[in-house]
């Protein structure tokens, strides 16, 4: 600036000189590929909503990445403190919005546990059926969306087509396609409609066909395999430290499924089914485990449909529900992973504190660890295979 003497340059010229220098400097900083910061999201096709991932890139390689959430934080933990117990299901429905019914179940179970009531067997079986149906609806969309994330556009249409059948089933049983709000403390709102069982069996056959279709269309595809195998490997001990759950944990070789390994009033232990694990821990393993679980879920539903016990769907509970003082933790194996509620009651009509342990929050907390050193396209693969739902992260 010493050469720029006030006498030589007028004010306007000097300003424009500084401005052009500043613009160049900014352009150099912004467009430098070495050490470029890439904002993926909040609005980005790969983030299923409004997750933002800040990635520091060297060329196309990620040096450092950090998810930034909160664009969808709705404060459910605070809101539960001013709701009554039956009203809370309306809130928690919207945590994982693709598998809503599964969100209601652990909360209702926790409240029932504190109250010492148990839903009649028929209600438990129907709960389990609906729970697994929401898993099928949720994960089938994942399987279709997986293709889109990796550039194959066809699977997602098949997924939307076939998920529709499942949503119709959920709608005809509960009245709500996305947010059933059907679970009650002590049972269920209603019994199943007539003809539902036969229809469900048919749909489960369709979903198994869908799984076969996706397996041959996507999982058998060499490009898909080369894009997912060995990408985003999460070893067993890291997965457990981060509290990964569901298919993400089982894909790292941990044989742990809350449906099987936990005594629960639900009907899972009344039928025979298999927990799938995969030793690799990579993106392919996570997707593969989810595919197998979808198929397994349809088999569970099929078996449960054959043996629904008769009886009422609602236990005797007081009209105004007051939950005795105490603390309870209930978690279930939701489509996304372990979903749990730590409910603290003070003997009131509403909870004193509810800690919502959602699966995606833990699952996505591994992202900074998992994204280091991968390429930009692999960010998408890893995010897709970890499978999160925004509402489930932010709550």
């Amino acid at each position, binding site marked *: 600036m010493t050469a720029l003497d006030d006498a030589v340059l007028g004010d306007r010229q000097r300003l424009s000189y500084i401005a052009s220098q500043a613009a160049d400097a900014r352009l150099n900083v912004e*467009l430098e590929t070495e050490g470029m910061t890439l904002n993926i999201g909040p609005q980005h*096709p790969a983030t299923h909503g409004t997750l933002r991932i800040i990635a520091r890139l060297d060329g196309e390689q990620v040096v450092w990445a950090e998810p930034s959430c909160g664009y969808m934080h709705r404060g459910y933990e605070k809101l539960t403190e001013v709701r009554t117990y039956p009203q809370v299901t309306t809130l928690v429905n919207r945590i994982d919005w693709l598998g809503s019914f599964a969100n209601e179940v652990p909360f209702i179970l926790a409240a029932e546990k504190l109250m010492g009531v148990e839903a009649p067997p028929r209600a438990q079986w129907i709960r389990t059926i609906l729970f697994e149906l929401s898993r099928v609806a949720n994960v089938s969309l994942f399987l279709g969306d997986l293709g889109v994330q990796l550039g*194959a556009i066809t699977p997602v249409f098949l997924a939307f087509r076939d998920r529709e059948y499942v949503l119709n089933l959920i709608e005809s049983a509960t009245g709500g396609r996305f947010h059933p709000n059907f679970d009650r403390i002590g049972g269920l709102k209603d019994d199943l409609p007539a003809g539902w069982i036969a229809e469900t069996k048919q749909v489960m056959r369709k979903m198994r066909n869908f799984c076969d279709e996706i397996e041959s269309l996507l999982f058998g*595809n060499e490009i898909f395999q*080369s894009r997912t195998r060995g990408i985003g490997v999460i070893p067993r001990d890291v997965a457990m430290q981060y509290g990964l759950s569901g298919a993400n944990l089982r894909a790292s070789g941990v044989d742990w499924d809350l449906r099987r390994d936990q005594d629960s009033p639900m009907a899972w232990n009344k039928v025979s089914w298999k927990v799938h694990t995969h030793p690799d821990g990579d993106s392919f393993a996570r997707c593969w485990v989810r595919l197998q679980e979808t198929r397994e879920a349809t088999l569970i539903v099929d078996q449960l449909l054959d043996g629904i016990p008769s009886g009422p769907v609602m236990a005797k509970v007081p009209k105004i529900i007051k939950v005795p003082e105490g603390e309870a933790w209930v978690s279930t194996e939701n489509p996304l992973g372990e979903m749990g509620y730590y409910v603290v009651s003070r003997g009131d009509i509403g909870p004193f504190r509810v800690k919502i342990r959602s699966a995606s929050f833990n699952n996505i907390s591994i992202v900074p660890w998992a994204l280091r050193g991968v390429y*930009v396209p692999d*960010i998408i693969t890893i995010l897709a295979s970890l499978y999160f739902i925004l509402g489930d992260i932010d709550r």
Partner: protein
Amino acid sequence: MSALAIEIPYWGQSLLRVLGGLVAVLLPAGTIVYVFLFKMMSFMQSRLGPMEAGPYGSLQLVAEVGKWLQKEDIVPTNADRRIFRMAPIVVLVSTFLLVAVVPFGPDAWFTDFETGIFYALAVSSVSVLGILMAGWASANKYSLLGGLRAAGQLIAYELPMVLAVVGVVIQAGTMNLQQIVVAQNSGSIFGFDGLGNPYVLTQFVGFLVFMVAMQAELSQAPFDMPIAESELVSGYMTEYSGFRFLIFFIGEFATAGVFAMIASTLFLGGWGLPFAWFGWDSVDSVANWMNVAGPVIVVTKMMAVTFLVMWVRFSSPRLREDQLQRFAWKVLIPLSLANIMVTAVFKVVA
């Protein structure tokens, strides 16, 4: 054009050529969009596709164009305005330059270039410039990444494409596309001339390499990383809207059409039918009606080739950039080099 009975002044010929070029670029583009992008993709995905605009949605593209034309032409604040605006035109221009050498009949051609295929391969890289310009000028990181990916990819796949064409050139003994067509249709395979000698049979490896390289040149899935809507939003096209996006869109499918025409010219016999069917022996003896039938034949073959391109596009996921490069350098280039060697040996021996 002189073979047509009427004498046309030079300016008239030029005008006809320009109109012909427009038709030769836009008609295939529109057909490809409707038949493949709208309908074939929908049927593959168990849905109907557009059904409202016109019978079976046939006017959907017109509706889309109308929509795009109405949209605001947004230029981002930080963008390099002039280059940003120029980029789509550069891309489209390369398509028009490309179609200039495609022969449509014994006398229906725009230019009868002695080194036609050489020119075509050179000019096809002009679109890279446009894409790089778009990627850089958008002042958007996704666009920049997309533009750079496009540049890397198109340059990597230019080489196997050139090498695949070399086989054809050796076999035909000429770089003139018109003569390549004639050589295929008047040739014979081991004395059997019922099919002529379409190089898709004798240059099958070359054809495969050419198709793969073409898929990459056109950045269609599984090589659509420059666009990669789930990673880079839309790559170099992210910031474009309205009319300029339309130009990119038309450019994409028009280029697909023109490349398919070149592929059919090089490997499927172009505008010709096997000359033996009609007893022709050289291009001069070809009947005049082939000037009318030729374009139809070229478009038919073009649709067949585009079908292959689109079929792959709609059914495969996307490769990663490094996998794509590895595939080009480790598989396609050695393969095409081997093909050239074998072709050369046969040429010398036979």
